[in-house]
């Protein structure tokens, strides 16, 4: 038996290490199914050069937050979306823009912008800092469209009625649009924090 200083160990369960170019929106679900709770991104994640690339990476972070995956990552640059659009997502440990990272980490609070699925409806809760609290209930076709927007991030993949719903979602601050990509902002609340009333 050994007692060591805190170390980053590899292996299933403790965590996985991947390169930044391996981060996909599907990865958090795969890791969760494998019982993995932690992920280390080996190299800095570059953001800010291409808005569509940024949105795909933020989609990964949205899914990672939804799965409560503990991601250890370093930010190179800053995302090409407004700072408030990312503060509900798991923040970087550090980054090239220290002030930006510090602000993100300070603003981050698990669960501050999430949605929940119910029978025929979706509820959305937005209690991010620097804005009024918003509680929405979306039902009918709008709920179907909302959930369709949560399933993809590519505008070309959207059916016409869902594409029209994207316009509304952007207008209401539920999504951001790039050139060919978009991102539904709130994550699905799959795991409640302790205490459960904190989200």
């Amino acid at each position, binding site marked *: *038996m*050994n*007692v*060591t*200083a*805190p*170390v980053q*160990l*590899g*292996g*299933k*369960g*403790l965590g996985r290490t991947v390169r930044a170019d391996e981060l996909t929106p599907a990865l958090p679900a795969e890791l969760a199914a494998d019982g993995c*709770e932690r992920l280390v991104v080996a190299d800095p994640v570059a953001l800010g050069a291409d808005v569509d690339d940024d949105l795909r990476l933020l989609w990964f972070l949205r899914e990672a937050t939804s799965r*409560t995956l503990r991601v250890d990552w370093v930010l190179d640059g800053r995302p090409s979306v407004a700072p408030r659009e990312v503060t509900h997502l798991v923040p970087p440990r550090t980054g090239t823009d220290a002030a930006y990272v510090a602000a993100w980490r300070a603003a981050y*609070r*698990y*669960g501050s912008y999430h*949605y*929940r*699925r*119910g*029978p*025929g*409806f979706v*509820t959305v*809760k937005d209690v991010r800092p620097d804005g009024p*609290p918003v*509680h929405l*209930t979306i*039902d009918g076709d709008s709920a179907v469209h909302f959930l369709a927007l949560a399933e993809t991030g590519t505008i070309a993949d959207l059916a016409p009625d869902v594409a029209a719903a994207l316009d509304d979602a952007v207008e209401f601050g539920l999504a951001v649009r790039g050139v060919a990509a978009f991102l539904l902002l709130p994550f*699905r*609340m*799959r*795991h*409640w*924090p*302790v*205490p*459960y*009333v*904190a*989200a």
Partner: protein
Amino acid sequence: MPRSICLAALPWQSLESPSLPLGLLRSACADAGLGLPWTYHGALRWTEYLMAVTDDELGPADYTDIAENGMFHGLGDWVFTGVLHDDPDFGVSTLDDYAARRGIDTALATRMRGHAAEFVALAADEILAGEPEVVGFTTTFMQNVPSLAVAARIKRLAPDVVIVFGGGNCDGPMGAALHRNYPFVDFVVRGEGEVAFPALLKALDGDGSFGDVPGLCWRVDGVQRTNDIQPHPLPPGRIPVPDFDDWFAQVESSPVRGYLEPKLVVETARGCWWGQAHQCTFCGLNGSLMEFRSKSPDTVVAELRHLVTRHQVLDVIAVDNIIDNTYFRTVLPRIAELDWDLRVHYEVKSNLKPAEIDALRRAGVAHVQPGIESLVSPVLTMMDKGVSGLRNVRTLRDCESAALTVSWNWLYGFPEETPADYADVLAQIPALSHLQPPSAAGRILLERFSPYFENGALGFPERSTAELYRHVYRLAEQDMADMVYLFRTEPRGLTEAQAEPLHAAIGGWHERYTESYLQRIDVDGAVVIQDRRANWPHEDIVIEDPDLMAAYVELEYGRSLPAVVDRLGSPSPDRLRDWVSWLRERGLVFIEQGSILALATTAAPVKVG
């Protein structure tokens, strides 16, 4: 023609959820062909009134403060007692003295009290505006005085309106005493109301007699009559689906709406299956109806589906005193299959198995109240809880792994307990920093219906009504004794000075919890225990020896050393003993009465401080 019936729930009903008694009685009346009673939601109206008259200086958070924290000092009742007694000064100096001795801040309650008379007048006017022939008040805990104050005013303004009281505060002798003490209350329904209340309404219409209404308190020529309470509890199949339509409609248009997230209340069982065989010695919560009854799984799932769909609300409070143990295999898996993002509260027995905790988590149960009460086995035996302290720690550990919020209090003041009972456990509390602490430690209160109340020989032979009622009711002791729920008695067990180390240990536990993790991880053929507790060295303990890895797994169940040796055959008893001593020095195990429990969780929740 059905009568015009108003059902009223006055403060301090939860602001975030509809009144379950009102919802049940609405359905029961409709099912009995009596039409749908209309309702008066006094919690909403009182909060709206406070917001209006104070320009939002008082609001939902203040209401909830009194509702959740005022009960054991009677603060909610005290707010309205000056109105009930038509004496603005009644109870003021008495509460001042009471609060000063206990260090209680009464500023908020005092400020609210200044608005109570106008609100009672408003509530009576609003109820009478609906021209009711019958007004039924449901009263539990601190709803008595505000309900009585409004009822008295209604009676003064409209003597022909029939006033009916029911609810938990009217169970058994309490209902009869309330009926005796307050002549403006025409009837009191004791026990379950789903049968008795519609029967009373029919009797008022000449269909049946008052003498046949189970549990009813009524009068003949001013002389009280009391009917026997229904001998057999209501079968679960006859408990109606509550009708909450009116509350949800009202809350949607209320200025309070922006401050709260509405929650559904559901009732899947009544009574307590544990208490039927081993009633916890201090607990009187089930009143006169301990017999456990639960709804069928089909009914539970159908009701949940109906209420969630109808009201588009995913937060659900199950008001059961204890979950039906069969639900872990029947109801919860079916709820999980719905794939809704529910957030459910349930009360459970504290000896949960990992599979049961997993079933809760998968079904969207995020909050449990397991009745842990203590981590000291001898004291738990005095309570007749049927679990050990170590077993309770195991439940805390496994709920932590599943990210279930656990609400519990640490109770002391049991007749035979001594400081020596606590010493070993207190020394180990620093090792529990990563597990959820109790809200606080508190001396048990003598509750009506509890074994300690019913049988003075168990340790509390002397009793009088709790001191808080002195600033709530203007009644003689003998008139109050049958009406109230809490009693004063000589302190037993730990003195306050002896309890101080417990309070201090819990205080430190609170400070450390959010930043503390202790997690077991399986890595490449080894067991790694990551210690990130705030009060312990941050280190990783790597166990690679197959014998010790197997022993560690055994200790996760909570085993004695001989049991581990018997089950594994190795390592040797001496080596195992030395190793366990080493684990204890590092706070990695909890040891009580010869059993050893490994403390690391298998997953870590997201903690929000």
